[in-house]
């Protein structure tokens, strides 16, 4: 689980030939990845119900076979410009710290196996994302893969702080 592997970044490149299985996807021109174990499913865009007065990056809730789960716009979460949804947009449903939630990405690329050894700790700033959310960077032959730390990215504290900041500015 990413949640366990991520905080101890050194473990990620422990040197052995252990393989990581990742789902890679694009958000705003960068390529990201999460460990496949934390991904429950990947869905096409579906009808979202807006939640009034919720944090800005919370796009709404969806009905996932009777369960109601929140959906986050990852572009907004990363502070990027929102983009139009198109046929390639997907909702990736993950389980983080016992909570199920979805996040919207521009498109999903592939499932990839890489050796743990090629993952390096994150530099302080990668692309447009705060390094706190990054579990590591995978250097492939032709490109960089940013491994996201879902637990930090979607932790309750993160959302609460965003939320209280939002209500403070509103007041």
């Amino acid at each position, binding site marked *: 689980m990413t949640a366990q592997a991520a905080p101890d970044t050194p473990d990620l490149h422990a040197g052995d030939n252990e393989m990581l299985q990742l789902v890679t996807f694009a958000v705003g021109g960068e390529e990201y990845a999460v460990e496949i174990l934390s991904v429950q499913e990947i869905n096409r865009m579906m009808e979202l119900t807006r939640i009034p*007065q919720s944090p800005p990056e919370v796009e709404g809730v969806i009905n996932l076979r009777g369960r*109601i789960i929140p959906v986050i716009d990852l572009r907004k979460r990363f502070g990027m410009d929102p983009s139009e949804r198109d046929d390639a947009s997907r909702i990736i449903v993950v389980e983080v710290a016992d909570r199920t939630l979805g996040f919207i990405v521009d498109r999903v690329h592939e499932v990839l196996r890489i050796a743990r050894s090629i993952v390096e700790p994150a530099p302080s700033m990668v692309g447009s994302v705060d390094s706190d959310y990054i579990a590591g960077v995978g250097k492939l032959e032709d490109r960089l893969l940013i491994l996201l730390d879902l637990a930090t990215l979607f932790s309750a504290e993160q*959302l609460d702080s965003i939320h209280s900041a939002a209500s403070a500015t509103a007041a």
Partner: protein
Amino acid sequence: MQGFDPEILNDFLTESGELLEELDADLVELESASDDPDLLNKVFRALHTIKGSASFLALAPIVSIAHAAEDALNAARRGELAIDREVMDRLLEAIDLLRTQFDELRDGSSLTEPDATLVETLRAMGEGGAPSASAPPTPSAPVADAPKAEPIADTGDSSQAEASGAGVRSLVLNESKSGLLEFMIADLDESLDDIEIRLARLLNGAESASEDAAHIGEVCEALTRTAEFFEHEPMRSLVAVLGTAAERVTDLADTGRVQLLPRMAGILLLLRKQAKALDEGEVVWWGVDTLAGRIADLILGHEIDADARLPEAADGLAALATDGVRLDGADEPAPADTPDNPPVAGAPAPPASTPDQARPTEPPVADAGPAKAARVEQTIRVEVGRLEELLNLVGELVLQKNRVGALARQSQDHDVLTQEAREALAQSSSDLDRVTGDIQLAVMRTRMQPLDKLFGKYPRLIRDLAKKTGKKIRLVVEGGDTEVDKSVIEELGDPLVHLMRNSADHGLETPEERLAAGKDETGTIRLVASQAGDHVLVQIIDDGRGLSREKLLAKAIEKGLTTEAEAEALSDRDVYRFIMGAGFSTAAQVSDLSGRGVGMDVVRTNIEKLKGSVDVDSSPGAGTTILIRIPLTVAIMPAMMVGVGRELYAVPLSNIVEIVRPDEGDVSSVNGRRVMRLRDVVLPLVSMEDLFDTPEAQREPARFAVVVELNEQRVGLLVSRLIGQHEVVIKPLDGGYAGSAPVSGATVRDDGGVSLIVDVAKVIAAAQESAEALAA
């Protein structure tokens, strides 16, 4: 204390815990009705059962206090001890201690030893001047080595038979049951044959040991139920011991097994005799404490005393002899004094009794009567988690049913289906609707519990309060059989305690004040529950001094909740409602209703969590009434779907008073706030689009005002469309994401989309806030 199965421990905690809860209320009732033998018996039996089960688990501190209390009650049962205030105080102390010990057991911490003085006092009460507490009068039986059974080990047969010998009494049954007795005896004989075969195999060390043991366990379980049904306590306890032993016997080392198996055979022997006695319509009581205690020890893997050890190849009779069970009770020497008696199967079954001589042992005449009937109710225990799962599934089912219904309606307008198919679909859909409704109701019923579960605790509370305040208080409870959802019971407990305390503490006057006011010196608090449609009403009515409008107003003005100018115009109810505001009741005790720093606002919050409401009424000098309204269940509710802009929201139907279509002319603005005149009342209006930040592009003209009410406050919610009424399944919104919107959850619509459920309490609060902001 280590080493026993957590499941057995849990069962003990649940079962005895329930008995303990009832004890409180029953004891207090007993204080005023100490001549009620049924009640006395019930209380006695409950303590006896707790003691018995605790001793089986070797929980000595619990046994010790329960036993002492039981002694005192036993004396009372024999009429040797009058239950006065002093006795009752000690008994209640004992119950409190038991409760503490149960909590400790639950937490896995070590058990508080009972206070020696308390135990002594209770025991002394039990002596009651009569010599019989620990040595019931037995006829001239050769009680040579009458086992002074360690009181620790007793599995719940009659205490009269406890110390030594046996007794015989007639089995008292109502007609419908006695008709079935014949079948029971036939069935019993068959079951005992069955057990005997298996037990013999176990004794011979057959390979099928675990299968045989398990089988005995199953047969015993069935027999337990039969014995319970026929209110046959001695048989029930014997079967229970045998069953437990069977479950464990294969886990034991050989040394333990050779000790246990003959004892099991001994019990079988006793059961045979019991069956025989039943033919005559009689029940035999033996003092099996020692036997049961030793079995319990063996099961737990303990060593037993050297003199309790059985020789190799001992049989049932030998076991009985060793453990001091005198087979034929009072009138004959036990035939089992020598170990070389005939084996189990061929055991001579002398007449179970010679009734005329046996009866003088003061058999517990017919005390298995009415009080016990309650326990015979056929129930099974189900984990709450499973019920919750079931309820969730039913929720899904309701959703799917709604979808099918919607599809069936749509199909009526299309020609893709034949007329016949359309009709079949409509029929099928309506059947599904009915079945789902029934299942939903049935599942919800499994979660329902009578309010008595809560109400039962209050006599004790009131008694304590009366003692502390020096007031005379009578508690009248009505409608305790009204059933509500389990979650409601859980949430309602604290508010009710708070309200009762308020009534006792502040509502009722002292006896002197009451006499001076020309009232009965005893104040009355009535706790009344009833069901009204899909709601449950709970009222707490006291005949005390009532609320003081003046004092409340003064306090409200001081708190800035209202102004002197406005105060005049407020109705009494508006004024009373102040006591439920946050922080209102915690400060200096200005209002007559207020308590220990837990405000009435907590009461209100808890009740609102249950989608209920609280209302206060009072008349000075005559008393105060608190009215609580709660929906029967909180998981599924009827709601009106409304369109706000292009979005759909659900408004709980229970909050909706009416829906009106305001004309232009009705709506006006007061202090920048939109209001409408509705039959001479000015109704504040709330734009749902504003409240829910509907994006400009999605807005639509508001054509309807949905008038909602909570705690007698009304507002009109402006919406653009009315969709219709639906049963909605409430789904929680995860805290972090819900934001501060006035919604209480979400639900899935017929079309699969999600709608948020409007939280009427928050909407009304928001409307007031904005009104105050505008006024400022």
